[in-house]
């Protein structure tokens, strides 16, 4: 079962979770006939089991791209494939959405039910899963995000980080292979951010889920396998965290920051101290300096 990929040698299609093929998305203005292009002619591939981070400042098209990855938005031109299924195929749209789940920014606006376990059950209920199986999946999902003891609580009594973990459990209970996170920590306090990031890493490492994380926190991007930096609907940079943040000036030009430690190392180099330019964590810098 090999599908040839002409130039890069033979590649197995089964390894690709999400693939966008020359995708363009245009928003039409409501007031006049002007058209705004959010995503321009973009081709990317997300491999199975990968932890991909998409960075970009506001209006760079990263959220639009995320919404195209599970068929919430359909591309104006080009195609998006999830596990080989085209998002334009109306018969497959529910398969696509249960395969590629999506967690949004505001935890309050994605919780549907008045009790935690009922909310986690919402996805499988929609998929028509039998009640016994739903019960099993709900308990599993809640224990993965470490919220099992809160299953009979009302969501509004939980903290932001806990609510966001419930939202993640709500996606997990649909048994997705891939989860797309659209700035899941943007509205949380530092503690909530830590909780949610911990959960996301756990999902990637222990559960083997493919993760697409959209964020503008650099510290979160450091943990990725691969980073895409978007600017004006196009990919400006691509590479591992080390490869990206080595280019401090380029990253800043794109309106983004580099992690604090990297910035410090960069400033030290400028002052003439001989130090590597791809330092990403405090421990690394400590090792290099002491």
């Amino acid at each position, binding site marked *: 079962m090999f599908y040839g990929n002409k130039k890069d040698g033979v590649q197995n299609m089964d390894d690709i979770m999400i693939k966008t093929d020359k995708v363009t998305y245009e928003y039409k203005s409501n007031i006049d006939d002007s058209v705004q292009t959010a995503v321009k002619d973009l081709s990317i591939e997300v491999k199975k089991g990968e932890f991909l981070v998409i960075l970009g400042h506001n209006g760079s098209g990263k959220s639009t791209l995320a919404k195209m990855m599970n068929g919430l938005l359909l591309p104006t031109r080009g195609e998006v494939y999830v596990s080989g299924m085209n998002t334009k195929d109306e018969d497959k749209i529910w398969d696509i959405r249960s395969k590629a789940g999506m967690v949004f920014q505001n935890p309050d606006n994605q*919780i549907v*039910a008045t009790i935690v376990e009922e909310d986690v059950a919402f996805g499988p209920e929609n998929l028509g899963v039998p009640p016994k199986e739903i019960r099993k999946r709900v308990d599993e999902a809640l224990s993965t995000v470490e919220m099992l003891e809160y299953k009979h609580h009302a969501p*509004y009594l939980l903290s932001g980080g806990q609510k966001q973990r419930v939202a993640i459990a709500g996606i997990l209970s649909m048994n997705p292979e891939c989860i797309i996170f659209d700035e899941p920590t943007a509205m949380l306090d530092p503690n909530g951010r830590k909780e949610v990031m911990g959960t996301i890493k756990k999902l990637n490492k222990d559960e083997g889920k493919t993760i697409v994380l959209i964020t503008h926190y650099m510290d979160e991007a450091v943990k990725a396998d691969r980073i895409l930096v978007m600017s004006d609907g196009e990919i400006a940079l691509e590479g591992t965290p080390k490869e990206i943040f080595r280019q401090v000036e380029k990253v800043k030009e794109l309106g983004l920051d580099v992690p604090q430690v990297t910035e410090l190392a960069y400033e030290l180099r400028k002052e003439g101290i001989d130090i590597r330019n791809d330092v990403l964590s405090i421990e690394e810098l400590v090792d290099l300096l002491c």
Partner: protein
Amino acid sequence: MLRDITIGQYFPGDTIIHKLDPRVKIIIIGLFIASLFFINSFYPYILILLFIGIVIKIAKLPIKFILKGLKPLYFIILITLFINIFMTKGEVLFTIGPLTVTKEGISMAVFMALRLVFLITGTSLLTLTTSPIALTDGIEKLLSPFKIIGLPAHELAMMMTIALRFIPTLLEETDKIMKAQMARGADFESGNILNRAKNLVPLLVPLFINAFRRADELATAMEARCYRGGDNRTRLNELKLKNYDIAILLSQIAFFGFIISTRYI
């Protein structure tokens, strides 16, 4: 201030009344309301009072809680009393200025006021002993036969669930906006009614805009979780009628049937 609303509140418990199938409870309350309007003398009220008393006792509800539920309706009960005392024709007892008080008036007033009190306590028994989720499930199931004539039973239940889910969120938000506007000198507490209503505009406009934005985001999130209406949907907790549900339902049909029949004896 906004947190004191008690109507429709649920009083958690683990009694037979709490565990009774919500559909059975809704039907019984329906019978209860219907029978209240059939009663035309004071004696059946004793049975109604007995019914309420027994339910309160079994469900272990605090009487205080139920009286608190009546509070917001004092005014309506007073008006009912007032109108009935002065507007009913019959044997004149005494007159105050242009108003005459009749014997029939007093008895009618007490009768009507009691009917109101029973109506409110009876229905609050339903909401106090049934969780909102069970209630919406019950309503959905009871209305589902009407789907054939195009009644959107599932959609109605879903709307109720979402409304219930967002009540605390929106209350919190109202509180926040209120404080933010007060910090900028808005005044919600003084002035006459007209002024106060006017002062609410800077509260309501952001609240509504936010609510619409929330609705939009929620709809997207629901779609991302494969929501596509009620067809082929399963439930985590399916409702199942047990034998004792049916026994209680039948006994209550007999009980309220008897109360209704007293009108014709």
